[in-house]
């Protein structure tokens, strides 16, 4: 019985980490799905969102919901600007150039914040006082519930937006064939800007939830998180919105159960190993469909 309770507790630990990965992976996959660009700076947008919400709360004394809205707005703006300044001029260049630029943006943001706020971590206020839920001996914290809820809501909203609305249809059109979309009267620039705004705005929500679970903000916080979320997105099938969600939870559970039953040191190796296996067996990811490359 003890073993069963222990197992359930570890599953919940995994789901909690996974829900954060899922939230971050949604932003990754959203941008990739539409623009076919791996925005490696996404993890650092989370870091920027964390700093914005931190200063909104501690500097301006705002409540958390208002701080979150400001962080979403700030990150959306940052995302749109980054796209306009760094990615748009390279839209017709080889994909590798854009990828390298994304890495450069990531390093630029990290080092800029390192200069501005130093490497010493800043404490994040205890802002979400959502009650935890007890099921027998098992406790699920309020932050976990809230993160799972938020990622589920974001996923459904995104899916509906992309599939059902006019803007969503425009996004899919641009993703399929930008030139044809232009001929049909779709503004490619506006559509891509909107995609970046939504994807980056999501990273701010992820930032607030992440910092509520791990109450500390520092310039490098986004790099490993971004990488794990990227793996989650690839695992689920990059570009596919429900896939990001599933991938996030799978990665979280693998990590947690490896640490609990195999070895703490092997957790990362296991995660990256599974990525390799998935890429070998089903390169398009769990939810991915194999589509022939256009020639």
């Amino acid at each position, binding site marked *: 019985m*003890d073993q069963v309770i*222990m197992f359930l*507790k*570890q599953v919940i*630990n*995994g789901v*909690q*980490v996974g829900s954060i990965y899922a939230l971050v992976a949604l932003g990754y996959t959203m941008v990739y799905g539409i623009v076919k660009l791996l925005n490696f700076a996404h993890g650092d947008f989370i870091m920027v969102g964390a700093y914005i919400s931190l200063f909104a709360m501690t500097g301006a004394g705002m409540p958390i919901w208002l701080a979150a809205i400001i962080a979403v707005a700030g990150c959306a703006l940052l995302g749109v600007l980054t796209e*306009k*300044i*760094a990615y*748009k*001029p390279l839209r017709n260049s080889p994909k590798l150039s854009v990828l390298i630029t994304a890495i450069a943006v990531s390093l*630029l943001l990290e*080092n*800029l914040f390192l*200069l*501005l706020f130093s490497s*010493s*971590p*800043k*404490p*994040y*206020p*205890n802002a979400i006082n959502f009650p935890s839920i007890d099921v027998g001996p098992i*406790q699920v*914290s309020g932050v976990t519930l809230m993160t799972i809820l938020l990622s589920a809501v974001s996923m459904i909203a995104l899916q509906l937006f992309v599939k059902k609305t006019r803007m969503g249809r425009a996004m899919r059109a641009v993703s399929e064939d930008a030139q044809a979309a232009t001929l049909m009267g779709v503004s490619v620039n506006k559509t891509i800007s909107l995609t970046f705004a939504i994807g980056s705005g999501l990273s701010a929500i992820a930032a607030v939830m992440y910092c509520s679970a*791990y*109450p*500390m903000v*520092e310039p490098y*916080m986004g790099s*490993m*998180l971004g990488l794990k979320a990227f793996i989650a997105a690839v695992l689920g099938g990059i570009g596919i919105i429900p896939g990001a969600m599933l991938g996030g939870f799978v990665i979280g559970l693998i*990590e*947690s159960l490896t*640490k*609990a039953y195999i*070895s*703490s*040191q092997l*957790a*990362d190796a296991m995660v990256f190993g599974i990525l390799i296996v998935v890429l070998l067996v089903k390169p398009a990811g769990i939810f991915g469909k194999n589509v022939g490359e256009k020639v």
Partner: protein
Amino acid sequence: MKKMLAVFLMAAMIVSSFSGCSGNETSDSTNASNETTEETSAEASDEETSSGDSVTFGVLAPLTGDVSVYGISTANGIEMGAKDVNENGGTMEKTLNLEVMDEKGDIAEATNAYNALRSKDVAAVIGDVTSKPAFAVAEIAAEEYADGDGVPVITPTGTSLDITPCGENIFRACYTDPFQGRAMATFAAENLGATKIAVMYNTSDDYSTGIANAFVETAEEKGVEIVANEGYGADDNDFKTQLTKIQALEPDAIMVPDYYSTVALIVTQAREIGYDGVMLGADGWDGVLNVLDDANKSVLDNCYFCNHFFINDTDEKVANFVNEYRETYGEDPTAFSALGYDSVQIMDQAIEAAGTTDAEAVVAAMQEIEYDGVTGHITFDENGDPIKDVAILKLEGGEVSLETKLAAE
């Protein structure tokens, strides 16, 4: 668009060059205040201004660069130590001068700086501050000493084990990582009466593994059962899995030898999953209160860690040091400042005892030294590592207090 990018990059460069300036300013101010020390000492010695009537110590510290925060703190302590030596009649009734070199935390720079100091004919070297450059300097200094042309060297804060075994002229003022692990194990077993302890450590960090291994060894010798020995990676942020496992084993205490930012996360998560027992740590915990929000500081209740000195210690020597430091530099001294202060004083006392600045005589005097300083009573073992008291500090209600001082074994 390219122009905008260029403007943005320019802005970034300007910001970075500004920060560079501020770094230089700090070092300038340190150098400037250092010059004033030399001037005051020159006044004190009045007629004896020729170089034959003064003793010079070389100082190596990173005053700029990534680790400058430690270097400046240490250099300030060293400077204050030298000032106090001069106020008490100097070294062998000669003025003690300091020749401070900035080595930027870099191994190559440190080696060059050491050679520059040797060419200036210093009687002893205080340095280096961080472990890697300290080791590089120790290797050269030991070789020179073995060839009959060396100086005594004391590193105030290089904790890495391999520094002092380089040669018999290499000493250190701080205790080593394993020493802290042994001290905490003794404290847990004897003062807290713990019988079951879990250990969590960073597998990719020498500091963390060094303390953890020594802790486990000593704890087991004292009959404590180590119920779990869990590792984690350097980039980990989530420790609930390991903590859930540990909690199920119901330990009396959890030992977490890591630096304060990771410690803050581990302790917070331990309390979150419902563990409210004792948590233990080492000197890396110093500063942990600053990275937690006021509302979260209570998670640190019932935690103990060891440190080189305690800032609110009522001991006269410590209180005087802290007051004087605050007056001189307008900030609180750190453990680095205290160790820097003690390093100069130890070297001075050894030269006084030897009655000469001859390297071999001073090294022999160091080996026999009994020194009472800010960081406790110090003698040296056969390696040149200090045998000294360990201050065990307690965290409660967001405050640090002195729990006990463990005498060296």
